[in-house]
């Protein structure tokens, strides 16, 4: 990988593009640099935001001159060298009702903004990615786990990138024109990224399903919001489990009753082991969830 491209966002930001294209290597390098910068607690640095294949730093130029800030980041780049190959992190399983009635209904309302008005989002996504059926597509989507490679757009919204070889990455275009509505907790996909819509609102991603598990709650009502009001952090690994309508309804009731929970388990991701055997390594990661 060649060097990072740095650019100032006026007097308070530095934007660092690890690579123009998305890859796990670029994401890992950005994470490694952001972690090191966080550890240094450099006075004047107020925001450190890793994001897919880049990262953003906000700083107070009255406390650290922009040139000094840039120098610090370049020094850290040299220090971390190539992408950190081991990432200690955590994995969680999330239930998803694929091809659900709510996102289908929403999709139907915005058909004139879609590439293929005659099929649903998930049928379209399955077809253009070469899957014979929606079920095959769901099996691929929920088969291998996903990295949270960015959290943002709005509060607590995770962007995820599947832990598979590039040839197996699911890719779909965004809507031709964004919708003005997306149900809360929609599982969406755009480009090579999927996203879980943390709040209801506008959106341009293809809608594939919906999860019963809240991921952002300012009132922190469920056990897994005990420490913070948003669930995901960059670097988290998420495995999706395709559930039936009955299971989904049960989970929704549990959420209302305050008894629903998500369990995070520690795991270490190794880029080297992944490259040696991508599908085997994916299965190995998922097994962590069944070890208990």
């Amino acid at each position: 990988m060649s060097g990072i491209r740095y650019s100032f966002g006026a007097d308070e930001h530095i934007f660092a593009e690890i690579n123009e294209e998305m890859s796990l290597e670029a994401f890992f390098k950005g994470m490694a640099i952001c972690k090191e910068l966080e550890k240094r607690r450099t006075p004047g640095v107020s925001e450190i935001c890793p994001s897919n294949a880049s990262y953003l730093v906000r700083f107070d130029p009255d406390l650290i001159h922009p040139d000094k800030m840039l120098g610090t980041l370049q020094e850290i780049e040299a220090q971390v060298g190539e992408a950190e190959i081991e990432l200690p992190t955590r994995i969680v399983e999330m239930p998803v009702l694929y091809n659900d009635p709510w996102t289908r209904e929403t999709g139907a309302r915005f058909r004139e903004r879609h590439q293929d008005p005659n099929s649903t989002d998930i049928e379209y996504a399955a077809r253009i990615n070469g899957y014979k059926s929606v079920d095959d597509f769901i099996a691929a989507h929920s088969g291998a786990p996903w990295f949270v490679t960015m959290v943002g757009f709005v509060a607590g919204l995770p962007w995820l990138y599947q832990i598979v070889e590039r040839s197996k990455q699911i890719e779909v275009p965004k809507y031709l024109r964004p919708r003005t509505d997306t149900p809360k907790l929609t599982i969406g996909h755009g480009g090579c990224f999927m996203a879980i819509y943390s709040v209801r609102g506008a959106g341009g991603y293809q809608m594939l399903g919906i999860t019963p598990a809240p991921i952002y709650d300012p009132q922190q009502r469920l056990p897994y919001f005990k420490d913070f009001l948003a669930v995901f952090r960059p670097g988290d690994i998420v495995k999706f489990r395709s559930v039936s309508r009955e299971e989904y309804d049960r989970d929704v009731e549990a959420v209302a009753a305050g008894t629903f929970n998500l369990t995070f388990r520690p795991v270490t991701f190794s880029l080297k082991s992944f490259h040696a055997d991508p599908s085997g390594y994916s299965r190995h990661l998922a097994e962590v969830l069944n070890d208990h």
Partner: protein
Amino acid sequence: MTIEVIKPGLATTVQDAGRPGYYNIGIPLSGALDQYALRVANLLVGNEESAAVLEATLLAPELVFRAPAIVAIAGAEATPKINGGPRPRNESFSVKADDHLTFDFIKSGARSYIAVAGGVDVPVVLGSRSLYGLGALGGFAGRKLAAGDVLRVGKPQPGARAGRALPGDLTPTYPRSLELRMVTGLYFHRLTEEAANAFFEDTWTVAPEADRIGYRYRKGRPLSFRERKQPFGAGSDPSNIVDAGYPYGSIQVPGGLEPIVLHRDAVSGGGYAMIGTVISADMDRVAQMQPNNLARFVEVDMATALKARAEYKAREAGLRSTLSA
């Protein structure tokens, strides 16, 4: 002491100096969009300069004070009235129990800041009382004000008094047409040369879709991006990039059509190429632009941005020394 909302206005929210530190999980700074006016209003009533105030947008609210208080209004040029009688802007005045506050129409600027001695008392969430609307976080009940809301006010500082006024040389004006200084970069290189020139040559008009998230501008020529084989993950439109973090003040041009300057309730990231960033010293001026006001973007270098910032900070220091006395 409480304040009751009779009419909420277009978009009146509780705001303070903001909530830094959570942008990495998509929670933006928030806080008063015009930070200078926030400080003016607070210092006039003897508050800490970062205390929580009400930010009113375009159409101001009607409020009733349920107990005597010291009040100051800063920001947009709109005359405040108590029970129908005019009161000065940028000068603290006293109100009696059950006095009604209304405003005349705005002559210039877009946002008024209503400070009350003691500060608006809503719960502190992640270090700030500011509302972040998209996340239903902070502010009054996680939303903008509605008719019938009753806001509590904290205990005034000992120095709170009526008749403290902002000197004329520290009073900003809000022209209908202005220049916004920006540093190019980020994905500016993705624009064609003609588009890059057109962006700076054209005069842009503030669109009705201008809010705390971002200011949208229109009526300039469409901007084209250089054709390329799009990088993996970037999406198909040439204005798309692999989704990345958006700086505050950064300018994106979805589809090359309407530039958007992100402000303090920014969406924290996305897949639209940013072509540069408005300098920190000009963000308050963006906040006071009304729909149909005009802007030209002017390219400056880092030295100029830092000099403008130093001048802004000097004005702030002037405020403190003048109004804290």
